[in-house]
């Protein structure tokens, strides 16, 4: 009831199967994820006094952190630059990055409908994506100020460092939330990894219809 008919693969009468996430989407997700986790781990090693002595070669960790920082948004940026206007990938990315009335409504009666509000994503998932996009941009820029010794007043460097610290805490919290949601919705991991929905989720979707 009221469930948008946008999941092509739920239409069992057709033979065409559209995975929830196509290969290019999954590649973008996982390459970004690898960079992000690398940043989180190397950042923790550099930041926490208790972890710092564990590191053998701090210089190497710093370099890994900086390179991962340069790479983390690259897959998404390349996809947005090189995917043609109406290609499947571009439309799929735009779907995640488009806020609609339905999303606002979903947010208002949050959690009552446990599924996509309009298309493949619900408002929470879209906000998750938006949060990571915003904060990765902010982290990359403040990281540049910190790491490349850009000639700026000292207070600006202090401010950038402060935001980078806060960003670290916020992103860690939201990232753990993301992991929590993956655990709660078992099928989502295989959707993002293999492109298929798990039988469990399909069963759930079928039951709802």
């Amino acid at each position, binding site marked *: 009831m009221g469930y948008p008919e*946008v999941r092509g693969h739920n239409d069992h009468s057709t033979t065409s199967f*559209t995975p929830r996430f196509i290969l290019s989407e999954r590649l973008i997700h996982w390459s970004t994820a690898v960079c992000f986790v690398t940043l989180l781990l190397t950042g923790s090693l550099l*930041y926490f006094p208790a972890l710092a002595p564990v590191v053998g070669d701090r210089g190497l960790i710093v370099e890994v952190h900086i390179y991962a920082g340069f790479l983390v948004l690259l897959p998404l940026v390349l996809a947005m630059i090189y995917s043609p206007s109406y290609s499947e990938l571009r439309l799929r990315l735009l779907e995640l990055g*488009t806020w609609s009335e339905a999303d606002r409504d979903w947010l208002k009666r949050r959690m009552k409908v446990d599924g996509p509000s309009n298309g493949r994503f619900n408002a929470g998932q879209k906000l998750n994506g938006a949060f990571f996009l915003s904060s990765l*941009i902010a982290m990359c820029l403040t990281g540049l100020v910190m790491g490349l010794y850009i000639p700026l007043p000292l207070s600006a460097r202090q*401010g950038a460092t402060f935001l980078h610290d806060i960003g670290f805490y916020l992103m860690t919290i939201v990232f753990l939330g993301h992991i929590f949601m993956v655990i709660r919705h078992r099928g989502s991991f295989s959707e993002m990894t293999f492109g298929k929905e798990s039988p469990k989720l399909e069963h759930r979707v079928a039951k709802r219809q």
Partner: protein
Amino acid sequence: MVVGGDFPKGLTEIAPQSDVGSNLARRSVLIGLAVAASSLFVGAPIENLISNSASALGAGSLTSFLPGGGFRYYTVTGGYPLIDKASYRLKVSGLVDTVNSYGFDELSRLNQVELIDDFQCVTGWVVKGVRWKGVALADLIEMAHPSKGAKAVNFYSADNVYSESLSLSQVKQLGVLVAISMDNKPLSQAHGGPVRLFVPKMFGYKSIKWLNEIKVSSSQVVGYWEQNGYPQDAYIANYQGL
């Protein structure tokens, strides 16, 4: 519908949304840019406000748990040199009449000076009101009797890589400490213990860690970070950007 027929299934509903809804992706990019840019202007005042109000409430130790509070630990080699306090010797040599060498206990029996100062890193982080205790560097140099051509003091770390320097007049003016204690605790290994330098009014990179040799000289060595472009005159007040 704006778009044609061979559209991937499940996506036909999406494209026209851009005219009903606002573009979340574009907004996210702008927010990210705006937050990063504004942090350059308001980040430092906010951080100072937080740490000041925390210490005003008597929760000074709390600031080390706040984002941005506390030290970052740097080393330019793999890991921290482990120095045995019992066998540690601090050598004072170079252009002096008397070459001296002090064990840790001998240092702690010398006249101790205490001072409270912020520890300001050139990369932007700062730890407010750190309590340092140790021997005045000027005393150690005085006891070695610098010879005529002495103009500079060079410092060498037990990591065998890091070095720093000050002019002899800076040593006298600034009240530089050969520190053996920080915030009423012995210096930890990560903080450069058992003995490090603390140079007030200058950036942290001057305050060499794991100090094991002080050499009076006719000229200043170019320190580790100074070889990488940091100014040799590291006065925080004179900072012009790197």
